[in-house]
């Protein structure tokens, strides 16, 4: 195999990002939407790691940032699931279309 370049990894990251966005906009199930958001976050993580490795090999900033984002993502998932459970108790459904009362 040839060397795997920065471009390859960035391509994976972009693919992951847009898959996440697409999932977020098309899925009606809140859990699935949450998973899509995780995809977007992970694409960012890959970006950080890739740039750190290929451009600033001697530094660890990107790695730290990635670990930081993973931590935040875990916390965010906990909060999001709590919200989803509450929505479920209220609407007896986790369809995002049902939760549209917050409007004018």
């Amino acid at each position, binding site marked *: 195999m040839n060397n795997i370049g920065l471009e390859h990894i960035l391509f994976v990251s972009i693919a992951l990002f847009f898959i996440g*966005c697409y999932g*977020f906009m098309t899925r009606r199930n809140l859990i699935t939407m949450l998973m899509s958001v995780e995809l977007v976050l992970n694409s960012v993580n890959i970006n950080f790691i890739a740039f750190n490795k290929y451009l600033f090999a001697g530094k660890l900033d990107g790695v730290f940032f990635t670990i930081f984002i993973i931590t935040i993502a875990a916390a965010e998932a906990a909060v999001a699931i709590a919200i989803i459970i509450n929505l479920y108790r209220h609407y007896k459904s986790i369809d995002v279309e049902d939760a549209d009362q*917050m409007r004018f």
Partner: protein
Amino acid sequence: MLDTKYIALIPLLPLITFFVIALFGKNYFPKYCGLLGTVSLVASLILSATVAYQYFFVAGQVNGVYQPIIAFKYAWLQFSQNISIDMGIILDPISVMMIIVVTFVSTMVHIYSLGYMHDDPRRATFFSFLSLFTFSMLGLVLSSNIFQIYMFWELVGVSSYLLIGFYYDRPSAVAAAKKAFIVTRFADLGFLVGILILAFYSGTLDFQTLIYRLTNNTDSLQNICAASFMGVSALTWGLVLVFMGGAGKSAMFPLHVWLPDAMEGPTPVSALIHAATMVVAGVYLVARLFPVFSYCPAALDVVMYVGAFSSLFAAIVACTQTDIKRVLAYSTMSQIGYMMFALGVARYGGESGLGYMAAMFHLFTHAMFKALLFLGAGAVIHYVHSNEMKDMGGLRKLMPVTHLTFLIACLAIAGIPPFAGFFSKEEILTAAFNHNKIIFGVAVLTAAITAFYMFRLFFSIFYNKEYKPHEHDDHGHDTHTPHGEAPFSMLGPLLILGICSIAAGFIPFGHLVTSDGKPLETEFHLGFAAGPVILALISIVLAFVLYRKQSAVPDRISNALKGIYRAAYRKFYIDEVYLFITKKLIFNLVGKPAAWIDKNIVNGAINTSATVTENLSETLRPVQSGKLQQYAIYFFAGVLLFAVLFIYLWV
């Protein structure tokens, strides 16, 4: 110099009383409000008497000339180096005389009201208003600054408004209060413009400085005489406008229309405000600025003609009125006209200042006998429960004290010696004779008419026919229960004022109050004095013949003079003219277009902007749909847009 700090108490005592009664009186001591007001006013009266004694006999004269004394002065609003609105107290012969008049008459009226307003549920309010008025009037006469006088001027206007509208459940009283307020406010507009003109040229608001600068040969005087508008100098304009304010307050023609209607107020109020004190504020104002007026004969001529015309006009109208308070109101207007033209015929200093002294003298005596007349009329109304002459008659036996005091007052106002009015009227006639024969003729004619209508009133009330209690009354009593003449608290003031109406004429006014502060020897010519007195006596005899017994003669005379009588009865249609000017001309030509502009242009602009905003927000509202994924699309589109911008346009 006399110790002057305590003088501030004279106006402040009524002010404190006003606050105490207005805030606590109604709830905590409703029965004692009148007593409190009276006691504090008696204290004020004693202080005023002390001040008067100190000023006139101890400390006021320097080399035989009365000097104005500034008791104290406190710069209240400092506008610039020279111009400030001060709160001060000036003592000079006229202000000292006025505080005596105000506190004395006010005390009498307070005592009288203790009896007159005894059963009124709102007497706490009444006495608080009376105190407010007394404070304002005292502040007015003691003002050392022309703007201070303007403020107190408005304050007396407000108190007058409140007291005219005291019986606010009667529509006529409300209308009268509004009328008084609007007419005097209209006049005060002129006053304010006048103040501004005088202050602009003299560069000060302080009375003494203003008078000094406008009467000595300074730049101010030259400038104000040089400047002119419509061919009349600024000095004349300023003074005439100031006089317009005075004419409004003093009910001079053509701004007199509010005074007869103001009789809707309680009778003691009419005695105090609309006869003895507030309505002479205009005379006082002209007297206060008299040195400046005397530099401007044109302005004095205006004062003279307006005063003379008003006095004759009011006297004629008074002959035809049937409401006793209205007769007295017109007679007040007539007597104030007397004072005005007396000022108009005077000049500053020496012999020619006789008119000034006579006007002040007449102001003083008039306050006494007119207050007496009103309080007497109040006693009659209290007894009869009606204002109309036809409901009265034959009260002589039933009300002996009122009858006697009313007779004294009528003789005083008719100018019969030795009653007070004779002396003051005599001085006025002399002054008028020396200055202008036409005015003198008007004055003598007015004096004769005055004697006639006063005795018409007197005979109609106390003689004419047997008194029959009538069923109908306006005061809300169900049945007319005969009672005694009046309580002692009402008769006491009548007697005191009666004595004053006799004694006031013997005060040597010429030595005390003159235009330049120097004593003025007044001469007395028997021949000259006899003419008017004889005329007055003839008038009294005429009234005696016509009204002593009930007869058809007065009706026949009024029928014979049909047109004139009707015109006079309707007050020469002045009210109708005002109504025509306001309702027909001003409302239609100014009011309606203004209302149209307000409704369609001003309101229209506001409404249009409101409609536009509403439509816009209606259109934008659905953007906030509550659908999470829709938001996500907006967000994503926005990010893409910025990305495109940054990548292709920024670089």
